[in-house]
């Protein structure tokens, strides 16, 4: 596949950039933070996104979606990374839609996908329990109970947990803590009895929650995919999210680079535009090179997800690891080259540093994915 955006994706990119710059610029996130907004995202913007088809980008056409694929989803995520737009896009339109369309029963698809496509349902993925991402480390239990299951446990750092309508929860139906076998996935409505959601305030001013399941009853229909064999499906859903996050980080890195280069062209010190200082020029040029490499591997990962999702794991891990390094470099160089101004809350560059740190940790950091890559490469 040629490593270029096709015409459709190119148009989507332009449209997304225009819309986000106008309707959901960084000022929106700043405002959500400063007003302590209860939702943590702007519902009007979300509705507009749904109208433009963003929420249905991975929903099959027979479920009311436009099914444009992962490259298209990545294009949107990348542009959101430029404006740091807060929205449940990743948890719902990317991961939720992937989970249901690839692993859902007909009934589950019919119940959720049209609502996701329409922007009417928000979904969340509850996977982690400890401080570091580790999908096979599951202590949350799902015991058989009548015709269904009873869930007990605690999930940490659930993105969009407090605004979701439904949550996909990994729980242990067999095996012990770190075993790959014995994990099952459940679709749990957020209004289920015994389910408690605590929003956490995070450094990126986005939406995360701790979710406690205290004897939550679900029916057998709530199982997504196979009982005991949920880890492979979970990994596939996570890989979609990781690729989307990588695309978002790529957008953020590009924006950091551009803002910084802009600042270098403007700011004077020692009687000179600081962009004339060769030491800064070389660092900016090195950063540019890294950002270009980041763009390439993200596109490669997204194209692989479209073409052969079952073989995408290695490329997705490489992308997430590389973008973790690139985006952090971009934020660090950005703050440093903005000097004292870069340290103030008034300038935007700090928002990027914060969000990139969270995106880096989410669904496995650079070290996690490099480790995974090395294991897949068998060394």
């Amino acid at each position: 596949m040629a490593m270029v955006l096709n015409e459709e994706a190119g148009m989507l990119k332009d449209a997304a950039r225009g819309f986000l710059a106008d309707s959901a610029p960084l000022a929106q996130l700043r405002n959500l933070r400063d007003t302590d907004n209860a939702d943590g995202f702007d519902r009007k913007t979300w509705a507009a996104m749904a109208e433009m088809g963003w929420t249905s980008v991975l929903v099959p056409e027979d479920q009311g979606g436009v099914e444009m694929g992962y490259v298209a989803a990545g294009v949107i995520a990348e542009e959101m990374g430029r404006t740091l737009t807060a929205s449940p896009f990743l948890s719902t339109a990317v991961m939720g839609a992937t989970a249901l369309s690839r692993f859902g029963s007909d009934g589950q698809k019919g119940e959720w996908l049209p609502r996701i496509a329409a922007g009417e349902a928000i979904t969340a993925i509850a996977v982690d329990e400890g401080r570091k991402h580790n999908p096979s480390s599951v202590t949350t239990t799902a015991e058989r109970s009548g015709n269904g299951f009873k869930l007990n446990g605690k999930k940490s750092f659930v993105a969009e947990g407090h605004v979701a309508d439904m949550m996909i929860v990994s729980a242990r139906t067999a095996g012990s803590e770190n075993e790959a076998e014995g994990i099952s996935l459940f679709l749990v409505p957020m209004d289920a009895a015994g389910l408690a959601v605590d929003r956490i305030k995070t450094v990126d001013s986005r939406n995360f929650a701790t979710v406690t399941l205290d004897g939550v009853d679900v029916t057998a229909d709530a199982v997504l995919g196979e009982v005991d064999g949920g880890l492979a499906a979970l990994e596939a859903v996570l890989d979609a999210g990781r690729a989307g996050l990588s695309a978002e980080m790529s957008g953020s890195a590009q924006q950091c680079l551009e803002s910084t280069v802009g600042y270098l062209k403007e700011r004077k010190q020692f009687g000179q535009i600081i962009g004339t200082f060769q030491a800064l020029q070389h660092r900016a040029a090195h950063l540019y090179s890294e950002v270009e490499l980041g763009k390439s591997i993200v596109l490669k990962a997204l194209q692989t997800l479209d073409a052969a999702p079952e073989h995408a794991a290695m490329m997705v891990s490489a992308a997430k690891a590389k973008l973790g390094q690139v985006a952090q470099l971009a934020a660090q160089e950005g703050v440093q080259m903005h000097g004292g101004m870069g340290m103030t809350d008034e300038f935007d560059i700090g928002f990027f540093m914060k969000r990139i740190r969270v995106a880096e940790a989410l669904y496995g950091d650079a070290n996690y994915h490099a480790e995974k890559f090395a294991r897949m490469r068998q060394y």
Partner: protein
Amino acid sequence: MSDLESFREEVRDWLDANCPAEMRRPMASENDAVWGGKKTKYSEPQQLWLDRMASKGWTVPEWPTEYGGGGLDKAEAKVLRQEMQRIKARSPLQSFGIWMLGPALLKYGTHEQKLEHLPKIARGEIRWAQGYSEPNAGSDLAALMTKCEDKGDHYLINGQKIWTSYADQADWIFALVRTDFEAKKHEGISFILVDMDQPGVTTKPIKLISGKSPFCETFFDDARAEKHNVVGELNKGWTVAKYLLTHEREMIGGMGSGAMRPAGDVAVQMLGKDEHGRLADPLLRTDIVRLEIDGLAFMSTMERVSDEAKAGQGMGANSSVLKYYGTELNKRRLELMMDSVGQDGLEWGVDDDVAANWLRTKGNSIEGGTSEVQLNIISKRILELPSA
């Protein structure tokens, strides 16, 4: 018994009798620090401890007694520090007056200026702020534009300072101002002392990416300063400033010295070990061990630079190496700390906030002369590379 030994006994007895029990407990938060000044009330034991120490001149043990100091020599001052550490006595007074203005006044001030200002610093009566940076003169400090006009019997000051730490709680400010707009950049600057208790001086706190901060903007609108409050010669303030900047550089560079818990120990506590006894995250472990080795080499360098200085072998620009390397190391350390604590570190506004510390370190390589400025200094002064 040697003089020093009898001095030690004397100190020990005095501390024992005079250091309140509350002042022997570790500080629990920033609020436990005593900075003096007119605007802040301190607890009874805090004030008592400050007053008693000040009465001995021991808030500034090595300053001359006539200026409120203890008149101790280096060896005696060391004994005092040791004895205070022994009983875990808190420092009675934090003060930019002691750390920065004092040394400058002792070196460049007139006898009258010393008599007027040093005792009040020693007693914590007056809290000082530093007014160096300006919004359009960051690394290029000498580009400052705050205007100081001679009005016959006084000076009139107009302009703006930025990064003035704790200015909203300070009583006086020592500032760099431009007294000659015709002269070359470094030659029209004066070092002046300004009473902040006047309508012409206002402050506004700066919020940082790491959250609330001690930094303020400070505005001068027709502020007044007495003519005798210029330190050093008029238009020669840059000399005083450079002297103080070297001080500051060493203070900030020292932050990389690893007084904090070693990164390896934190990571092990957070992430555990594998069955070989290795940190569970092998890639993070690689980064941490390299950081720790660099940290050890850095600490050895701090030690060497200090010992060389004592032996008269030091090089002037080594403070730039320490500032540069120390702050970059500290940034690396906090990045690895963030990697170690994982999602726990991403919460905001909780106690013992790793994220806020992590973000705050990003300023270390900017404040007190950016890393880029330090590299310029090393390249010019040590390596003697030519200018373009």
